[in-house]
């Protein structure tokens, strides 16, 4: 049995069209999955069904052997954290500090420990100087950092990032990714929804959503060889691989092609 199992999952907001249509996916413990797909393909909806915020129309979700349902929702929520696409949806407190604490409060983390963790994770996302500020006055990227800190602080086994870094500057993004890599090494299971192909390259496997369906779900290196999947789903290949593909006909460029692949998969 896999760590996360999604079987025959469908969801619809209005009974008319299925926004998620017969999704079947298995994810193993400790995997890093990137989710790509066009606007409106169902990525955020899928994320919300996984954390029990939306109830599937049909199908089952099983996480670590527990099938998601009304009685198990609380137990499952302890295992899985989500950084929402819009950080404002995560803000409820008067100060940044309150907001980082919010998730931990629901997990009943003791006060002493909580204060320690607030400082630790605020520092990790470079927001230590902002703890007493009102969340509403933060810049876009600062809001995203606070939202991320609040979820990291819950130390869940699984974290879903829903375009959580879309407004960070390149340097902050890189810093954060380096940290997420260390968490992944220590066993964190990651589901990262993104439109940034370079960010997706870090994943073990890539899931491509298209009109509510799973269009492809494969090892990162393998899926990158399949240009069709990308062009038919409103996606673009990374620059290095576009170049490698365009040089594919000629033996003369073999060495360059190998280096381009090396760049794409290691940088």
């Amino acid at each position, binding site marked *: 049995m896999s760590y996360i199992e999604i079987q025959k999952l469908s969801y619809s*907001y209005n009974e008319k069209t299925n926004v998620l249509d017969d999704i079947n996916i298995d994810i193993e413990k400790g995997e890093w999955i990137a989710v790509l*797909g*066009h*606007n*409106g393909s169902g990525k*955020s909806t899928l994320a919300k069904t996984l954390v029990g915020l939306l109830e599937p129309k049909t199908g089952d979700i099983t996480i670590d052997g527990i099938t998601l349902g009304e009685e198990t929702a609380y137990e499952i929520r302890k295992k899985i954290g989500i950084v929402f*696409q*819009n950080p*404002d949806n995560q803000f409820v407190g008067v*100060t940044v500090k309150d907001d980082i604490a919010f998730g931990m409060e629901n997990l009943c983390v003791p006060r002493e420990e909580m204060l320690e963790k607030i400082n630790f994770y605020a520092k990790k996302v470079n927001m230590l100087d902002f703890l*007493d*500020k*009102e969340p509403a*006055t*933060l*810049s*876009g*990227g*600062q809001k995203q*950092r606070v939202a991320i800190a609040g979820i990291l602080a819950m130390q869940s086994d699984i974290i879903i990032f829903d*375009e959580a870094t*879309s*407004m*960070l*500057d*390149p*340097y*902050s*993004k*890189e810093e954060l990714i380096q940290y997420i890599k260390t968490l992944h090494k220590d066993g964190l299971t990651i589901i990262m929804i993104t*439109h940034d*192909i*370079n960010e997706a390259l870090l994943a073990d496997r890539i899931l491509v959503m298209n009109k509510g369906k799973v269009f492809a779900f494969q090892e990162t290196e393998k899926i990158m060889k399949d240009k069709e999947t990308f062009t038919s789903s*409103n*996606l*673009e290949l*990374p*620059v*290095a691989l*576009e*170049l490698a593909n*365009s*040089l594919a006909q000629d033996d*003369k*460029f073999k*060495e*360059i092609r190998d*280096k*381009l692949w*090396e*760049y794409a998969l290691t*940088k």
Partner: protein
Amino acid sequence: MGIRFNQVSHGYTSFADGLYTAIKDISFEISDKNEFIALVGHTGSGKSTLAKHMNALIFPTSGTLEIFGKTITSKRDKKIKYNDIRKKVGLVFQFPEYQLFEETVEKDIMFGPMNFKISKEEAKALAKESLNLVGLDDSYLTRNPYNLSGGEKKRVSIAGILAMNPDILVLDEPTSGLDPAGRRVLMDLFKDIHDKTKKSVIIITHDMDLVYQYFNRVLVMNEGHLIFDGDPEKLFREKDLFKNHLDYPNTIKVLDYLNKSLGINLDIYKRTIEEALLEIKGAEKL
């Protein structure tokens, strides 16, 4: 002249921690025509604050601003019609949620144009046209903007400003949250509007590939200061951009990697994949 900043600073005062100066002593000019400008800089560097000055949504706390001949100071001036300025300079917010408030997408996009005393029919036609331009079909007209995906909301908020047809367009991270094809379509759309009408366009972004490919002028903010104003290529020829929390475009990074790992000597300053490809194919020593 379109917009001129004269030693503008803006300090936010808040209950929690007093005064915070978000932009400091900024001076520069944006012509009312022919400008296609990227505005970049680290998280919290003051980009959105700067953008909100451009249509007088907020006022400088010191210094002055001239927008289409009107002088904006720290004090509200009864003689100035601020709403006229906001019609001339259209601003798309970083978070579409702050801009969408009607119960249907159609009404939301019509809201701006309806203020210009045009007929309801004309406003409807405009709404439909703008919606299609941002890549959404007519079925979205009757949808509630709150019940859209993130990228769909972003597109609707952009359509709302396009429908107003302002003289200058200021877009705060219009491509964040868009899928790659949408990013391309909308950047081409902004460029196309600029090319056809010569209108000035200012776009905030963290995407260095876009900065290199589309723009001929880039402004860099750092800790509230404007530290660079000029040609993107000049910026990307600088060493150590990372220290200003920026990065190099992917074409430059990839070509540089080829040079270093293969000991070859390609010109790395190529804007597009096509140009980079020509450079590789034309290289003498491989």
